[in-house]
């Protein structure tokens, strides 16, 4: 209050019109400089956006790639029909794989390249599913859960189970979702067997990766 009076007194002689103009100019100056400060911060902040590096190990899976073990003692080695046969008897009957290009680059640095391969009974598969599996029954899907991107890595009562929030997929029927909060099936990856190795025969039948 006292301040206010003092100010009023100080400008006693001054034209109130001029005072209003000065206030308006000051306010505009504050507004403009604040806006400029925010914009320039954003501009500099753009430097925080990571730069995408183009490297062969980050290329998406392509026709002609072979599938190799993604983890375990055999990591990096090509998956053979025999490996898949051996896995059939295991608790986890599938193998998590990465594609390897004909130039021998394992494309492991792109998360959406994580693939699940399994040798399954073709008789159990829906016609659509069978069409993109190999005649021997080699079947592949993107292993990146459509919910929040975990690797679907469990197997329970003949269904493929995501460990993170209990998403369940029916591998015999285009990975249809049969449980959990998963919004969509994972895309199938057409595969064939050549010289005992699993080879990619087509693009993913949909977009791989979490659907967020």
């Amino acid at each position, binding site marked *: 209050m006292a301040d206010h009076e003092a100010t009023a007194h100080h400008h006693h002689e001054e034209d109130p019109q001029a005072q209003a103009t000065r206030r308006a100019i000051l306010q505009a100056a504050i507004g403009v400089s604040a806006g400029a400060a925010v914009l320039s911060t954003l501009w500099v*902040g753009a430097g*925080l*956006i*990571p730069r*995408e590096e183009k490297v062969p*190990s980050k290329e998406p899976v392509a026709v002609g790639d072979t599938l190799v073990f*993604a*983890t375990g003692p055999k990591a990096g080695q090509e998956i053979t029909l025999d490996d898949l046969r051996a896995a059939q008897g295991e608790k986890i009957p599938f193998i*998590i794989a*990465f594609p390897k290009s004909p130039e021998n680059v394992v494309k*492991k*640095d*792109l*998360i959406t390249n*994580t693939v699940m391969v399994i040798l399954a009974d073709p008789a159990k598969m829906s016609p659509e599913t069978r069409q993109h599996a190999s005649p021997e029954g080699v079947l592949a899907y993107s*292993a990146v859960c459509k*919910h*929040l*991107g*975990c*690797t*679907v*890595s*469990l197997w329970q009562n003949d269904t493929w189970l*995501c*460990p*993170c*929030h*209990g998403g369940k997929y029916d591998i015999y029927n285009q990975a249809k*979702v049969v449980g*959990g*909060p*998963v*919004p*969509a099936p994972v895309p199938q990856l057409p595969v064939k067997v050549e010289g005992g190795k699993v080879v990619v025969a087509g693009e993913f039948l949909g977009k791989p990766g*979490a*659907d*967020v």
Partner: protein
Amino acid sequence: MYQWLDDRLSIGKLYAKAFRKAFPVHHSFFLGEITLFSFVTLVLTGIFLTLNYEPSIRPVSGSLSGGQEVPAAYYSILYIDSLPFGAVLRSLHHWAAHIMIAAAFLHMLRIHLTGAYKNPRELNWIVGVFLLVLAIITAFTGYALPFDNYALTATKIGYEIGAAAPWVGKLMSDILFAGELSPTNTQTIPRLYPVHVLWLPLALIGLIGAHLAIMIKQKHTQPKYAEKVAPGKIVGVPLFPQQAAMMGILFLIYIAVTTFIAGAFLAHPVQAFGPPTANTPPVKPDWYFMWIYGILQIIPANWRFEFLGATFGPQFWGGILVPTLIILGALAIPFLDYSKDKQRYLELPSQHPFRTSFVIGMLMFYIMSTLAGYKVDLGLSNGLLWVLVFIVPVITGVVSYILLKAVYGKSWNQEVEVEFIGKGSAADD
């Protein structure tokens, strides 16, 4: 000597003003202090950890990893664990974080149940809500630092939840984690590290400072009996020496108990999970995220639509919308339950049956949605969990309201007889 210092710093005045600040005596008032002690412990153990940690994932190998090539960040955790008391100090850091969040939550509960957030303390309630949220975010940014398979998986889920925010989510997640979170992204750890050890702690220190400054300026609320004993005065003990002595003792007890816990239950054995791979181990989040994790499990998969290029799916409802609504609700509390007069005394929960039953219902919601986090392990069905998560809390609230009214309703108009045992002096405020 004293005179010399006093001439320059006027300690006498400082003593009279600040050191005589009165603290009401009640054991629940220590919850805030325990939160503060946890923060101090986190900073101290954190300093130890930073001095031995390499924020990088360049491949290294050595005797600790059995000659195997592992990320440097992972290796430095093995190194820390191999130091004398290294594992215990790392464990202490881990448990202090849990205790900090738990104590902050209970502290908030105490404020809520006694109406201490009312005029003029709305601002400090808001600062407090931000403090809790920031503490949880800080804890989360520390998850990935050990860079083992478990840590990375848990963080990855957070990355995708962030990415589920409409329009800006992907960009935000990419900025925080320096791109897609993967076992081979070399930029993630160098980015998370300063955020976890520098920027967020600085922000926490700033907010804690503001929280305490406002508290000192506005003075404590105090138990009801104080009104009868010395109206208008704060009944309690002065900061120095009584309260300081109590705080000192409590801090020592805190350190003793937490160190015991840390030694008895070593945190997160990284060797058991190994460095990150393409495979996902079964993960469960920490208890303070478990309720979100539970809700994520019971949201139907087909609740999903697109709008102006953004996807609104189960991840968004469970991971973003529900927590955001709860935070907004918490911020709104002092304005929904507003008192015109300045609040100086605590209210008895029994005399505010609506508020108290609301809090009990909310707690039930947390407990039930946490239970939903065990959906797969317990084989619970979605239908049952929906009832447990959304109906049971309402029933609990209604029942507790009826009970509170029945038991305490009649005695409201009578003066509640409080036994006063004469502890504390009526220190000046």
